[in-house]
């Protein structure tokens, strides 16, 4: 058994070294989001990072938008890329800046799990936008399960690279958890994709067992 674990760990290590890039240099989960965004729409990117997605959407889809970001160095890069970026803490909500139904779509990629109140933030997304898109690392992915279930340690993977004591990810969840939240909050899921470590999009098997085989979950949703 321990040999099997060693083997799996080695596989993980290999994966962690892999380039996390998709087509046109866009991170694969961002490439999937980009496909879901219509031309000439207005978007808000919560936790926009270095503005890669917004820059891509502006150039490829003529999308107008703003990014909210807290990290000063990311903001510097956004300004360099000529992105409209607003320095803000998402934990303070969006009320200070945005009225209802301002955007066609509100995006939050790989940020949900690091916010103080993800449920309220999702509500805020659907207040200011008609649709929301979130991506998050799925805690029920088999690698995470393996580490917790067999090794008995908090999972550390490529998508969850931090140790338990220094992780910014204070609200990790699983595919099932997220869907339960949507149900309880009267949110309709319009599209779901899960990708694995190489960001290959859903094989039939992965789509059949998203909670087990999906490493990153990507959802598009709106108010029922």
């Amino acid at each position, binding site marked *: 058994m321990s040999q099997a674990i060693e083997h799996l760990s080695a596989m993980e290590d290999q994966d962690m070294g892999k380039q996390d890039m998709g087509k046109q240099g866009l991170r694969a989960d961002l490439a999937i989001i980009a496909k879901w965004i219509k031309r000439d729409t207005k978007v808000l990117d919560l936790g926009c990072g270095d503005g890669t997605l917004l820059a891509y959407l502006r150039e490829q889809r003529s999308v107008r938008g703003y990014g909210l970001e807290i990290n000063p160095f990311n903001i510097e890069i956004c300004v360099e890329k000529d992105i409209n970026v607003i320095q803000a803490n998402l934990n303070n909500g969006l009320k200070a800046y*945005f009225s209802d139904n301002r955007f066609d779509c509100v995006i939050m990629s790989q940020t949900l799990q690091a916010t103080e109140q993800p449920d309220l933030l999702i509500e805020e997304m659907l207040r200011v936008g008609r649709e929301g898109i979130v991506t998050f690392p799925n805690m029920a992915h088999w690698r995470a399960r393996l580490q917790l279930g067999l090794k008995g340690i908090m999972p550390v993977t490529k998508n969850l690279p931090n140790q338990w004591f220094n992780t910014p990810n204070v609200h990790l969840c699983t595919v099932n958890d997220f869907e339960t939240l949507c149900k309880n909050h009267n949110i309709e899921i319009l599209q779901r994709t899960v990708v694995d470590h190489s960001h290959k999009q859903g094989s039939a098997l992965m789509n059949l067992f998203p909670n087990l085989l999906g490493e990153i979950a990507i959802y598009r949703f709106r108010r029922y």
Partner: protein
Amino acid sequence: MPETIDDDSVGIVETQTIHFSQALTLECDKTLAEYDIAYETYGELNADASNAILICHALSGDQHAAGYYSMDDKKAGWWDSAIGPGKAIDTKQFFVVCLNNLGGCKGSSGPNTINPETGKYWGPDFPIVTVKDWALCQYRFMLSLNINYWCAVIGGSLGGMQVLQWTIDYPDLIKNAIVIAAAPKLSAQNIAFNEVARQSIMSDPDFHNGYYLEKNTVPRRGLMLARMLGHITYLSDDAMRDKFGRELREGKLNFGFDVDFQVESYLRYQGRSFVDRFDANTYLLMTKSLDYFDPAQNYDDDLALALKQTDAKFLVISFTSDWRFAPERSQEIVKALLQAEKQVSYIEIEASQGHDAFLIPIPHYMAVFTSYMRNIAEKLS
């Protein structure tokens, strides 16, 4: 005193003056039949006049934004850290203009100049000019240089308010608006500080109802007090603690009312040196102009509505320890801009220096500023 001039300095500069003989009707309904505007320029205007930048100065600023007047000059212009070849406002790319606002005391018509109708100093009879009047003045000035629009208007504090006014009054003549450490209007606390400053000037026995120049005197003590008060509001508690702590000037308490602490000495020095370079009536006028600034007033108190017409792109910058115009005040501007669906970026710079931070070349601040300006420059060609 620069023994040599750095490569990134605009070098030796001089103030020029333009005389305007076309009458100017001000917001207060008074008319100036003629007036002078003192200004400086740095860099070269390009062939299609598309690279002109207007710098708006703050309360105690003037047209001398960058460079030195001579090799003996002790200090560079007030924003030398940001203006020059290779600096944030790159004079290799842009033609930069800064003028002394009307009512100022550095060569433009103001209380310390002669009223052509009476042959005497204007003194307190110089009309109160507003931020809107300044924008109008700057607009006329722009046309006089054969410039049709500014590729950017940039200013901090009261200067930032002029930038806002530009986007409201001349919405299509400004391509980029950089509003630094500003506010959409003054708070009661801001006005209260200004009032104490004014009272200290006006209660000086040498004030003579503002006609002090005719009496060959200046209200030194009053103006000094006003400046000392101002300085307290420009610094943060932390900045003062870092700079002075409770350090004693002579290493011991003197049990008297003269200077014990370094901070007292600093304030007195700032006050005294200000008196030598600034006019008390101008100080009164500038503080009133600040108090009156409220561009949303004519738009149902809706700043977003006021800003609706402009196509300018905005960069709004605030500083964490600024309590004179705190980040929340800049956020009010940002909120209105977002509501009006304008292109805007907003950066809150971590800084301990208080309101003064906008003049200090803090690396993150300069990096963002430089990148933003570089993008503007790229679109020129």
